[in-house]
């Protein structure tokens, strides 16, 4: 009997074109509730789109787990994915705190993790692991280029503001170091209570009074919306610069005209004029009815890398961990590859201005810093 079924299987396989493609089990670890839920949605939309476009949705079994924004819950869910669902790979992780909590577990469980957002420098720096690949960005990667660029533009002094949490500090430190190395001076710096500050007027007034050439900030989500609108309403003459999350396409419409003229740096712009990006933007718009954000492209690239790695060596955990860092291709955001020294992505960083064109807010690229890579920063694989 057993032999009969084995024979049947061989026949079916031959009929199928001779390729046995076992399903790949993917754990999608994203926040579906809480303040980061919108980011989680964008990432999973991008991920699904890539599978869909490749016509390979059937080949990947997705198991979705909600991390909220709580590191302990994220860790519990990751354990569930590994021990109970026995996934081949985990994709996702939005908040740096969750990534920090997962690190030792992922490393010990030898299950590959494709980070699709969390930018914590340490994850591909001093705490790096051969099982953690990042296709999104690192906090330093986004902010160093704009620090250097700003100094090159002749800006002498800057005042910085950011939300008071780990990511905020990393973003501002990276910017500050690059800006100072380029010959600039940071004349003042403030961190605002994270999640509590909705009205930035007190800080804006202080930043204005400092009299710097530029204000550089890191805010994301609703804090970014509020900050940009309030900066605009105070009619502050010091120009505003920031990490690109400040005027992300995901919520720039909520900022309205206030976003115009804000200069920021990001690893993806929906307006990039490349064939890969055109295809992506059209497909995304067709499926979801909106312009893709950098979060959507992170999910998209996570899926593209995963499919490429499966094709290269199958879907066992070890093979995926081995093949994922070898990925290189040109995607919507330009040429990208994984740095074997850190497992962080090497990609272009774009400096852009938000403008109104044909009635809608859109991004105008001012400069491209190609192939930005992080130095090893204590990472030993």
């Amino acid at each position: 009997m057993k032999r009969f079924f084995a024979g049947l299987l061989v026949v079916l396989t031959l009929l199928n074109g001779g390729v046995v493609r076992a399903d790949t089990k993917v754990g999608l670890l994203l926040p579906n509730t809480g303040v980061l839920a919108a980011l989680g949605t964008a990432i999973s939309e991008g991920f699904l789109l890539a599978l869909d476009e490749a016509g390979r949705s059937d080949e990947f079994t997705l198991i979705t787990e909600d991390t909220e924004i709580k590191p302990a819950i994220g860790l519990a869910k990751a354990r569930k994915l590994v021990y109970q669902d026995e996934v081949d790979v985990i994709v996702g992780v939005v908040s740096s705190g969750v990534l920090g909590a997962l690190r030792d577990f992922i490393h010990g469980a030898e299950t590959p993790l494709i980070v699709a957002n969390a930018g914590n420098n340490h994850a591909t720096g001093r705490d790096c692991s051969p099982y953690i690949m990042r296709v999104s960005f690192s906090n330093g990667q986004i902010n160093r280029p704009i620090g250097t660029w700003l100094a090159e533009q002749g800006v002498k002094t800057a005042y910085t503001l950011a939300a008071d949490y780990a990511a905020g500090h990393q973003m501002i430190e990276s910017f500050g170091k690059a800006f100072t190395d380029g010959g600039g001076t940071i004349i003042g710096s403030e961190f605002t209570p994270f999640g509590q500050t909705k009205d930035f007027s007190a800080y804006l007034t202080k930043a204005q009074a400092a009299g710097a050439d530029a204000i550089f900030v890191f805010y994301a989500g609703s804090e970014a919306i509020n900050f940009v609108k309030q900066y605009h309403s105070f009619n502050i003459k010091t120009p505003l610069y920031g990490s690109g999350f400040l005027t992300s396409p995901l919520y720039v419409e909520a900022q309205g005209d206030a976003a115009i003229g804000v200069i920021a740096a990001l690893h993806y712009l929906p307006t990039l004029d490349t064939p890969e990006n055109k295809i992506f933007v059209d497909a995304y718009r067709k499926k979801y009815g909106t312009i893709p954000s950098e979060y959507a492209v992170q999910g998209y690239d996570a899926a593209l890398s995963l499919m490429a790695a499966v094709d290269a060596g199958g879907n066992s955990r070890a093979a995926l961990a081995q093949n994922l860092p070898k990925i290189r291709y040109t995607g919507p955001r330009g040429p990208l590859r994984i740095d074997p020294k850190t497992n962080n992505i090497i990609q272009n960083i774009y400096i852009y201005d938000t403008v109104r064109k044909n009635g809608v807010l859109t991004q105008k690229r001012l400069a491209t810093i190609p192939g930005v890579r992080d130095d090893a920063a204590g990472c030993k694989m």
Partner: protein
Amino acid sequence: MQNVAMDVSFWILQCLNALQYAMLLFLLSVGLTVIFGLLNFVNLAHASLYMLGAYLGISLAALTGSFWWALLIAPLLVMGIGAGLYFTLIARLRTAGPMNQVLVTFGLIFVFLDLVRIGWGDIALGLAAPPALSGTLHFLGINYPSYRLFIIGLGGTVMAGMWFILARTQIGAMIRASVENTDMAAALGIDVSRLFFLVFCCGCALAGLAGVAAAPILSATTTMGITILIPTMIVVVIGGLGSLEGAILGSLIIGFIDVFGAVLMPSFSALLTYALLAAVLVWRPHGLIAARG
């Protein structure tokens, strides 16, 4: 001389920032505190009504094309929702004790949170200030956003109106009498339950008004209700539950502590309001201005 002028204008600006935040807190806390004073009811869902005000305001502004219509209609809609809540839940809970009221209205916060997520999504929404108020006003050597001045004016107007109604009108006298002693007021022929309903609706409308008014500055997020709940409760508790003067005093204290804490000791600003709340309660367990003797 130049520096001194700089300094003076800096502090004037910060005072205005504090005043503007205080007025927003006042709009929210006054409804909460008067409802408590009169109905002896702690309505945590007040914060959800504030959130609904913001979201409805944004939709109405998109629909009518005018901020002013939104500012007028959204509070009325929120008042309608409040009236619905009154008949289904609040009236039933009048005698259920503060613990049960806190719990039911806490449950309502959860319900409204997800209803808003279903209706408007997870992405924060913005509302543009009306064109007439989108610029800045120049006075006393400073530039200040007109919209923020408008909020200060709005808060001041509501404050004055409340005072006038409570101190100078017949209905105000009835409300004061009922706060003082409900049974006595009923014995004197005041229709207490109708009065309660009226006050509850007005409180809800004020929460909605605060929501629309705040939207151009703070935008609308699904967590805005829970986030504002704490400072509002702090205002009400510091001031003394049920006291109008307490709400005014509490709003001003929290507004100024928040802004000047951020300016003068930023490392501790996140702790300051909590420390103040704890200190006030330890010193005066019923708030600074207790509503009843």
